[in-house]
């Protein structure tokens, strides 16, 4: 059985929640696995993050290097290629860092790569069976991965539930001397924090959220009218921002804002996982979509299969009537 590593993302001395999820994923590959955490970085933050993993991992491999102070995937890859034993299975969170790191890492390790894995069905010989999604989450697919020369597996954040585990003694092993010389041809300069918008969608109790189904910029007004009557705000999914129909500050999702309203009206939103990742606090979710197979209906409380451009004005009118009656 190859050794299983979990690449631990950490910030400010604190390991990301994904660390425990990767440990859970490792046990789906091999229930008897004692996965090893591997983390890279520099200084007290790295040491603090490493120590905090003692309760989740039996062994924690630490690679300290000043050049790894910021997680530049090019340098992290170089270090990992030196440190990881041949044939390892490496689990990495499928986030902006994992997307940056893993394809090239798998290539340099001469191992297989499976991206954005939701579930692991188990290992038969050298064949690992996993679950992925295609077409924006509309269909699931089983894939088989030949792990005979190792594998890098990107794991979808939130897909595996962290499990309490008993044994680990949590030894930190310093692998820094094995990392070799790190040479950057891509240099991190700075992080530009997203601008705050006119309305803070993270503070709203009701969101009328629009997706690609709104079809064109002129239709955004349909959602704004409804939001006005309801006393709600309009948020959106990524395609609406890509098309420049709304500001980035209105975007819900992993690359946008994380919201926690009481009620979320998903209007013409397909329900890609990157979008759902931005909805927290289990709001009452009402989905309106003309495609009955849209993944949003798998997470919504109530669904309406209808044309948004017809349904929204109807809902606005009914809400106005209700308000009118209430005002008298």
């Amino acid at each position, binding site marked *: 059985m190859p050794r299983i590593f979990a690449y631990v993302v950490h910030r400010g001395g604190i390991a990301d929640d994904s660390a425990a999820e990767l440990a859970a994923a490792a046990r789906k590959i091999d229930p008897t696995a004692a996965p090893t955490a591997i983390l890279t970085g520099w200084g007290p933050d790295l040491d603090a993050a490493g120590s905090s993993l003692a309760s989740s991992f039996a062994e924690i491999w630490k690679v300290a290097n000043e050049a790894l102070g910021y997680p530049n995937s090019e340098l992290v890859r170089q270090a990992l290629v030196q440190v990881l034993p041949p044939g390892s299975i490496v689990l990495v969170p499928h986030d902006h860092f994992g*997307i940056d790191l893993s394809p090239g890492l798998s290539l340099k390790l001469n191992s297989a790569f499976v991206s954005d894995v939701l579930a692991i069905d188990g290992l038969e010989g050298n064949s690992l069976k996993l679950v992925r999604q*295609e077409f924006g989450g509309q269909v699931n697919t089983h894939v*088989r991965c030949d792990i005979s020369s190792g594998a890098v597996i990107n794991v979808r954040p939130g897909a595996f539930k962290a499990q309490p585990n008993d044994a680990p003694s949590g030894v930190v092993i310093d692998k820094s001397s094995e990392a070799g010389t790190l040479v950057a041809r891509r240099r991190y300069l700075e992080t530009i924090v*997203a601008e705050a918008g006119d309305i803070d969608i993270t503070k709203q109790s*009701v969101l009328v959220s629009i997706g690609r189904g709104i079809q064109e910029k002129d239709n955004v007004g349909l959602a704004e009218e409804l939001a006005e009557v309801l006393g709600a705000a309009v948020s959106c999914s990524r395609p609406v921002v890509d*098309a420049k129909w709304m500001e980035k500050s209105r975007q819900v999702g992993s690359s946008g804002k994380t919201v926690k309203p009481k009620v979320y009206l998903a209007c013409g939103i397909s329900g890609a996982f990157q979008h759902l990742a931005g909805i927290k606090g289990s709001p009452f979710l009402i989905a309106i979509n003309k495609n009955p197979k849209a993944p949003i209906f798998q997470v919504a409380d109530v669904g309406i299969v209808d044309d948004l451009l017809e349904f929204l004005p109807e809902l606005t009118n009914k809400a106005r009537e209700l308000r009118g009656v209430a005002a008298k």
Partner: protein
Amino acid sequence: MEILVCARRVPDTSENEIEFNAAGNDIERDELVYSVNEADNYAVEEALQIRDRVGGSVTVVTVDGEEGEEILRRELAMGVNHAALVSDDAFNGSDGKGIATILKAFVEKGHYDLILTGVQADDGAAQVGGMVAAMLDYPFASLVNSIALEDGKLRVSREIEGGNREINEIDLPCVLSIQTGINEPRYVGMRGIRQVASVPIPTLAISDLAIDPDAVGEGAAKVKRVDYFVPASSKEAELLHGSRAENANRVLELLAAKGGLK
């Protein structure tokens, strides 16, 4: 600047409901509307804008059957200088690494300063760009949402969590995977596509690129799709089946009940 864009033809999910075929091993492809992968379209537009600022040329390549020509015509109509179809039965069943192997061989036939891909295609794997970069030993950045040329290097921003942007300097030649929304891709009408209908598009086979047949295709694939299935959902939405007006009233009742009406 000599720029190569790797593009792919995919079913347009905004136009299609994805259905399985009878055997369950593929989706039903006969009725699907295909188009260029959305992120790839942004990559082509970005390449054109860079070329128009600093000069040079843009080439678009796709690995596909002869149908791949459709999207190449479209890119020619958008204004790219060259298009090439890489096509061979030996490529069938390639996994991400196989596709990257083919593209790497194509890159080595030319001289490119900058190679762009879309961040991901219909399989959501986001893998080929990073693999091509590693094969060529070029630096790589993913999720790129702006590019500026400065002193023979690029200043690129990457989309990271929360809408924040990570700014990096990257040496040329390099490979970048382009995130949607980086620009506003120009419109291409049927008329534009008709105007390039007679532009010859070269087709390259495995022998033209000196690719080892054992490195591509199903035989080389370490990752293989077994089947498609419907996602099992933890909960299923209660679908409203009333008239439009009834459904609207029900939504308002629910809003009131859940604290959504102020």
